[in-house]
């Protein structure tokens, strides 16, 4: 398995993940369920939980990570130009490349076609919403698998909420079609160049994008004998 490269020798080379991990704090959450302004009855109100992202790693990344990064840099430098890959993060033995949103399609094209890379399979595109990560609120995460080399990498593409456009990779990975539709449906990320970007799970006329953090949970009051309990997101908070 390539998920834990520290225990495997891929390509005849022992993979040692970078241990230098500095974390970039983008948000600090307080209490338990994120509701404020009501009485705390549980004592959990004092909880403080930072939302931290691992910072970009420095060379060497360790093992085949360097090989992939070098090869990608080389093929991108020849065609797309530098700057398409903004940074690389090695965390918990996994390689994540942060790619610019305009050029993710070109990067994927090279990742798939180059003999030294050969990431033939895009196993999923998911979305993440970081409302406090200013200018990079919406992330799309691509998981790529190279069956030729038995390697897995992750691409992360960020877009601001005010301009949620990311280049579509459907022309490179046809399986990305429904994944991009799902990410559009739930996070409102518009994949430019997608053949038919419509909602896939929610009804066609649904307003809003439900997996964003600021989307209300909804629900109705629950009626009991002699009492009414408000819907979950309006109940007394335990923070």
């Amino acid at each position, binding site marked *: 398995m390539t998920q834990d490269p520290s225990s495997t020798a891929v390509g005849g080379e022992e993979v040692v993940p970078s241990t230098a991990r500095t974390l970039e704090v983008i948000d600090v959450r307080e209490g338990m369920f994120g509701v404020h302004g009501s009485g705390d009855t549980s004592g959990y109100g004092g909880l403080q939980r930072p939302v931290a992202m691992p910072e970009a790693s420095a060379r060497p990344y360790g093992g085949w990570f360097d090989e992939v990064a070098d090869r990608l840099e080389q093929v991108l430098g020849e065609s797309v130009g530098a700057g398409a890959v903004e940074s690389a993060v090695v965390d918990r033995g996994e390689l994540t490349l942060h790619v610019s949103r305009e050029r993710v399609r070109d990067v994927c094209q090279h990742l798939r076609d180059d003999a030294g890379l050969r990431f033939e399979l895009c196993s999923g595109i998911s979305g993440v919403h970081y409302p406090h990560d200013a200018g990079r609120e919406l992330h799309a995460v691509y998981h790529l698998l190279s069956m030729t080399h038995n390697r897995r990498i992750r691409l992360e593409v960020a877009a601001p909420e005010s301009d949620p456009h990311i280049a579509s990779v459907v022309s490179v990975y046809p399986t990305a079609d429904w994944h991009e539709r799902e990410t559009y449906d739930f996070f409102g990320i518009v994949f430019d160049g997608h053949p038919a970007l419509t909602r896939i799970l929610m009804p066609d006329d649904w307003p809003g994008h439900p997996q964003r953090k600021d*989307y209300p949970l*909804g629900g109705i009051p629950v*009626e009991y004998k002699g009492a*009414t309990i408000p819907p979950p997101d309006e109940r007394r908070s335990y923070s």
Partner: protein
Amino acid sequence: MGLEEKLPSGVLLTTVEGLAGYFRKASFWPATFGLACCAIEMMEFGAPKYDSSRFGMEVFRASPRQADLMIVAGRVSQKMAPVLRQIYDQMPGPKYVLAMGVCASSGGMFNNYAIVQGVDHIVPVDMYLPGCPPRPEMLIDAVMKLHTKIQDTKLGAHRVAEIAADEKVALEAVPTTAMKGLLR
């Protein structure tokens, strides 16, 4: 005492209503409408151990035009709601709806934007079956109670009066929130 005593043996008398109810209740044709985990229990209800063929309803129909009982087994999402209503509209009358499980009955644990809070928002429900999911025994019990209800259903003008009476009772019923006393 009357006509009965003059009949030869082997002949019974009943009402047309009673006979229609007897035939209707014993020949359910359920539509397959499994939506979630309750559907697994519904399948078990049809399988040999619980054997719904004992009640004449072992043949689940994939076409609503051949079915008269819809067992809504599972949570109904907002997107599935128009589909469910269309299937109900396609069923020939007399037709019955059994809301199986708390999700179909009231939304259950899914009190959120995506799930219809009780299938009675979109179709009239004849029998509510609680449980998460209910055991096949509970589904048998619900079907038996529905049998009783159908056996007692009236016909023609009496049916119109019965509907009006049910409506009056429902309108005059005390809302749950206005009830007093213990939670039961």
